[in-house]
């Protein structure tokens, strides 16, 4: 009796959160996704300008930098292997670490839920356009991260951080557009705060809860009671708060180590779905290509499919939004172009590999057309279930871990934005982190529509100031990247193993003591190849 009453009240709590939140979300979505109706093509076809904005930037930079992302690939692999790392920099942030940090921030629910949404709404053909968007996004990402490192800030105490707010303010100042740069930097930071609580937080906690609820038996399971969303959100908020406010680094360290394994495991799980249905692979591929170009709806349909694919790809790999530039900037290098090279791998891993895996699993099992499951994680979960009954549980663990690591990453992006806006202080730091944790709870309690709408819009808004800056600084990027590649081709930059010198033991980490008689150590012997 008592419990039923409390669950009744609790049900209204989740609904109340949703009722308050939905109108705000609808209002912002209306502005951000302002769409041009293309009635001359077909009735009901609309083109959201923000998607055009992102894709045009990708295409512009791909042409302007002569397909840089494809030429950069080989050298990027060598860079993350550490072939060009100075041994004296051992102990600093390597290219591998910068990339891994950025990837664990981007590989999240966009790869699982976002792809499912794209295919449910746009059909299998959305996969094709998602991959195309991923390929052009690689270039935008390379451009952002080159600038991120070039204009990063080194604090007096030795901390290093960068991101669009610094290249917008500093880079544009060098171009004589100081005021514009400052305005764009402030706008970027405001939108980043929104994106951090939206796509980087609420969307993640919402989908993590949806998945946890569905594997525990749905509405009738032990996470089916009315306030379950709020309770789940509260637990998640405590776990997030323990790391970002409580400074309990060990939790973050554990997830950081688990996430890469989880990502690999997720890809293996998708592959096993594919192998279980391998006879249908040719059909599925054909279906993807066919519906990408000629869906039954005619040309208007193609545009609709294309928009779904591009939109979800952008949401997943974040190319053009500027978030990755924050994560990549701490790398130890003297050449900003090196991180530009490494960064192109990020959309590749995220979109071209992981998103495509999800898409194939969904298309091949046909769960995207199933009306029974809501578009989102559940679609992917249903695809996994066709292989083994326990697979959705694995997916649920992956979803929660991805969501958690993405939240931690975005709490950092938001922190950088808020300290840029309000200055470095303990008060700003703590206030932001507290607000962030509150939104974890709101996200888990809200319905998907309201959350997805808000998440999308705030995250996409970040691309407005960021891409304006990228265009203005495009010459700077070209000089950095092409100059670096020229020196690389001329042999001015060699891998460490071929440089013919050993690090001098007297620099950096060597202790000052040379011996009682003050004798200097012997000069280092010549190099030996390992």
């Amino acid at each position, binding site marked *: 009796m008592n419990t039923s009453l409390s669950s009744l009240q609790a049900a209204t709590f989740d609904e109340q959160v949703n009722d308050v939140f939905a109108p705000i979300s609808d209002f912002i979505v209306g502005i951000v996704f302002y769409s041009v109706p293309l009635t001359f093509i077909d009735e009901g076809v609309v083109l959201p300008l923000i998607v055009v904005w992102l894709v045009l930037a990708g295409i512009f930079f791909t042409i302007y930098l002569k397909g840089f992302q494809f030429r950069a690939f080989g050298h990027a692999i060598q860079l993350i292997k550490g072939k060009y790392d100075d041994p004296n920099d051992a102990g600093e942030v390597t290219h*591998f670490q910068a990339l891994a940090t950025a990837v664990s921030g981007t590989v999240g629910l966009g790869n699982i839920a976002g792809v499912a949404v794209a295919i449910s709404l746009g059909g299998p053909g959305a996969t094709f356009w998602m991959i195309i968007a991923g390929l052009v996004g690689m270039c935008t990402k390379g451009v952002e991260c080159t600038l991120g490192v070039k204009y990063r800030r080194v604090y007096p105490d030795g901390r290093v951080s960068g991101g669009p707010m610094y290249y917008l303010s500093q880079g544009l100042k060098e171009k004589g557009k100081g005021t514009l740069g400052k305005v764009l930097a402030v706008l970027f930071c405001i939108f980043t705060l929104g994106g951090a609580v939206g796509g980087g937080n609420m969307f993640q906690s919402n989908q993590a809860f949806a998945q946890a609820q569905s594997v525990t038996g749905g509405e009738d399971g032990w996470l089916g009671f009315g306030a379950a969303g709020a309770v789940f959100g509260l637990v998640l908020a405590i776990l997030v708060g323990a790391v970002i406010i409580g400074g309990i680094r060990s939790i973050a360290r554990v997830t950081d180590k688990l996430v890469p394994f989880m990502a690999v495991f997720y890809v293996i799980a998708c592959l096993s779905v594919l192998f279980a249905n391998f006879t249908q692979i040719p059909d599925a591929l054909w279906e993807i290509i066919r519906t990408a170009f000629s869906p039954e709806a005619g040309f208007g349909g193609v545009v609709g499919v294309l928009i779904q694919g591009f939109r979800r790809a952008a949401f997943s790999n974040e190319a053009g939004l500027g978030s990755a530039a924050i994560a990549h900037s701490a790398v130890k290098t003297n050449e900003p172009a090196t991180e530009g090279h490494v960064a192109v791998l990020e959309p590749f891993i995220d979109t071209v590999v992981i998103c495509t895996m999800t898409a194939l699993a969904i298309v091949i099992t046909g769960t995207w057309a199933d009306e029974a499951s809501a578009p989102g994680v559940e679609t992917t979960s249903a695809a996994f279930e066709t292989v083994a009954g326990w697979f959705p549980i694995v997916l649920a663990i992956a979803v929660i871990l991805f969501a958690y690591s993405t939240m*931690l990453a975005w709490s*950092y992006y938001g922190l950088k934005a808020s300290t840029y806006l309000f200055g470095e202080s303990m008060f700003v730091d703590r206030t932001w982190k507290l607000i962030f944790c509150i939104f974890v709870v709101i996200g888990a309690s809200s319905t998907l529509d309201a959350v997805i709408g808000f998440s999308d819009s705030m995250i996409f808004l970040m691309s407005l100031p960021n891409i304006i800056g990228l265009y203005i600084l495009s010459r700077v990027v070209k000089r950095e990247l092409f100059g670096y590649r020229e020196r690389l081709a001329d042999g001015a930059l060699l891998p460490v193993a071929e440089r013919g010198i050993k690090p001098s033991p007297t620099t950096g*980490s060597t*202790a000052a003591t040379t011996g009682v008689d003050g004798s200097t150590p012997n000069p280092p012997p010549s190099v030996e190849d390992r």
Partner: protein
Amino acid sequence: MSASIIVGLDGSEASGRAADAAADAARRHDLRLVLACVVPWSPYSFSTAEENERRTIDKEREAKSARERVLDPAVARLSAAGDLTVEGVVRHGHPAETLVSLAREEDAAWIIVGRVGQSRVRTLLFGSTPSSLIQLSPIPVLVVP
């Protein structure tokens, strides 16, 4: 003709005994003594953005603490007699690999390490520094119990 002996120090008692054995050998063969403290670090580990931001500071802090807690006392103790050239080096990296590359740089005759350094669980999981040294080193390795 080799120039030095490398000693791997980690602050444990066994590594102190390794340093004593190395000092003996250095006197006898008239070699320089290079005391090395390697802070375990991997270029392929995973870290958070916040850790990356502070990495340069943390590296300095780790190096400073290794120098103050492990190296400086050992250097002071061994060079007290005044008949040895003792040098201390802090590096970040894989302990065994870093000792080997240091041995190359310093033209070392031996690498000397203590037997017990880490906990049993860690040894079981990752192998001990002495056993990987034996696999990797191009020069003789002396393991002191």
